[in-house]
């Protein structure tokens, strides 16, 4: 496979993993880890996998903010200091932990 074809395949796989990961994270917090794993697997190296997992976590935060914004609850949510801290921590740590799996499989 050409380097360009490989890159395209990785992007497609990452995009599919992202959609699946967001779906999993919407039903259970373990979905943060699973989603982090899914987006990490197509990455070339395990450090990139961890970075993809963290990025996935950030994306879940952005998706939550967007959802709250639609219902008019974003301002209130931003005032919830402790819950917000847990959410940010869970997103980043969950995504990173999921991303570590990239290093386990090869």
């Amino acid at each position, binding site marked *: 496979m050409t380097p360009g074809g490989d890159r395209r395949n990785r992007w497609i796989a990452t995009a599919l993993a992202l959609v699946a990961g967001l779906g999993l*994270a919407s039903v259970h917090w373990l979905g943060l880890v699973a989603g982090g794993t899914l987006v990490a697997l197509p990455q070339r190296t395990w450090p990139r996998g961890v970075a993809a997992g963290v990025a996935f976590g950030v994306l879940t935060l952005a998706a939550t903010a967007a*959802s709250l914004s639609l*219902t008019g609850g974003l301002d209130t*949510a931003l005032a919830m200091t402790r819950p917000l801290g847990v*959410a940010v921590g869970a997103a980043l740590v*969950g995504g990173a932990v999921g991303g570590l799996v990239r290093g386990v499989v090869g």
Partner: protein
Amino acid sequence: MTERSGDTTRRALLAAVAGGAAAGGFLGPVRGYLSAFAPLSGGVWDAADDDPPLRIASDHGDATLRYDDEAVPRIGGDDETAIYFAAGYAHGADRLFQMDLQRRQMRGRLSAVVGEATVDSDRFHVRMDFGTAADATWDLVRDTEAGPLVEAYCDGVNRARADLPTPVEFELLDYEPGPWTPADVMLAEKQIAWTLTGSFRTLRKETLRAELGADAAEELMPNRLDHDAAILDRSGATDDWEVPDGDAIRGGVSDPDDASSRASTATGPDLGGWLTGMEPPAWAGSNSWAVGAEHTESGDPIMANDPHLSLMAPPVWYEQVLRHDDYQVRGVTFPGVPFVIIGENDRGAWGFTNAGCDVIDFYEYETRADGAEYRHGDAWRSFETERRTIEVAGAPDRDVTVKKSVHGAVLSAGAGGDEFRDELGVAWTGLSATNATNGILGINRSRDAEDVDEALREFDEPTQCFVYTGRDGSVRYRVTGRVPVRRTDGEMVPGTRVFDGSARAGEWAGYTPYGESSWEGFIPFEEMPHDDDPDYVGTANQRIVDDADYPYYLAEDYSEPFRGIRLWNRLDGIVDRGDVTPTDLRDLQRDVHDGRLEHYLPVLEDARSGLSDDARDDLDTVLDWDGEAERNARAPLLFVHFLDAYEGRFVADALGGLDGRRDASAYAPNQWVLATLGDEWFEPDRASAAADAFETARDRIESEGWETYGDYNRTAIDHPFDQSFLNYSRYPTDGSAATLFNFRVEAGAGSSWRQICPQDGTTSRCILPGGNDGNVYSDDYDNQLRRWANGEYKPMDRSMRGDPAVRFVGGDDE
């Protein structure tokens, strides 16, 4: 190390980290936090979207639920059960956590979710066994007209509980609410009844008698205060009331033991401290007044009511509009209770103030068999006992013995010593089955004052001053509820002492705790204080009637009369002027004159000689003050802090003689009495104490950096969790603990609802201290608070407006 083995090691390490972290989250204590707060899936974020389904199947018939722009549900339907199903849905959608918290408190199950901090509260509520009293009440109500409506309401609550995201608070405490039951509805009635009529004053006064002497107790806690602002027999207003002849007294009235000479026993410090901590606050009160048709500009009566209860987020009241073909009603109820308690329907408006009647008594017993049996007259009876467990989150569970006698609950704590009373029987009307639910339903449905009169016959608790005005021009004033006639050896006795339960002293005929009472030995409905056609009437928790004018013992004491005096003076003036309008009554509800100023002028004058020059300038500011507790003034800031400091000084100087294990501040006199106490109560004298208190007040104000009253007198209305995102914003406001525009910043209490209701067909006005929606994400969580703080109102119409939220459809389609 080879490359392959290094790779294997790395993989193993990464697998261990990833697996360990995931397992730690899944199995460890953070699991609950992750379930609640994780992005996307966290329940706290889900709660932001609590819109109900547009169409809901109901077994109770068709109804429509709309929310107006103040989040007030407006519910219409052809069938009452359909309406109350929808009302239950709205309560469940908007206030479910508040309902569950109150239920837990009354059932003694707070500690199961809150932890160690509420064990004392749970122990009290379990031992009083309010839950069984609520069960007995439901047994009485189930087969009455209200029964099916209560059941439909509970179905609605539980439907909302199943349909909608769990409120934020449940996520924070990590538990799921159980089903809402009819007994829980009855329990809510018990809670408000206890808040308004539960009192351990008798015990405190007995303790003062035992430890400081009878004369001191009488001076510090007089049963009657010297004023002439009683509700009944007010010249030109309530002076044509029908004085009852006392038919039910039979055999005369006496106090078998001369109050000044009989011996008293102090309540043990442990028991006294525990009970004082569980006692409802003494400030629970209210204002309500009405002006009859002949004095108003419109020729129709007008009434106003503002109950003074805890101010909290969300508010203690829930506002609703219910529209049935036969009646339309709007007003407030307690979340968890279906019917409008204060409000108006299409034929009249009504309100309540606390009456202060004595419906609680205490008994001591001669016991044997290690306290397992007690003598009751000529018989020895076993105490009923039952072991129960109080679940405590994060700490060992506690076992509690629920103990009962013929009088009701038996409470005990510690063992203070032989000279103390460590165990007491408690009789309280609310421990019996009561039928207030049908009373309130009857008022909601009423077509005229006669309907209301009939409904009030069923209003067993709490004892309240009820004020009603009708579209037909009628005005009513009546004390509601059951008031016992205590008898010792056949003679009526006041409930101002702990009775000898073994001698059957002070018993209530017709009362059955935790069962159905006949009330045969209680003051008859016809003989309860009432005026069926007052020209105008003013109630603010002051004395209902002078003892000389009423044959029965009604109350141990009444509230301080500062508001009552002011109310009558203003009402007299308004009525004398004539052509009273709703605006006049609104202005009266916003009256901020603090009558304590005139009462304390001699004390303030005493302070002058002991003050520095700067302090004298401040003293002059107070002495020149007009008594208006307005946010921009400095004088009320000085005055209220002087009162606090003066009370503190009194406690330190005068109550040192109490057993050191007691909280002496719990025995402080009220502010009316405190102003009357002379040099003998202070060290070295009253003038020095007043001067010191004034300096203390100035020091505190300076250290806090306050300039005006509004810097201090700010809304401080918090959620039970006291999390900043759940608490309400702070706004400066007017008024004080003693003004009609009532706000008690330190106690977190005040006017919990204000309504002005003319009966001329024009729209009534009202306001809540907060918002109707208990969901913190809602714009209506606190949208009325600023208006409330500024004394503003909103329309109180009963039209079916607002966006349709839910159509409840009878049948199976969904």
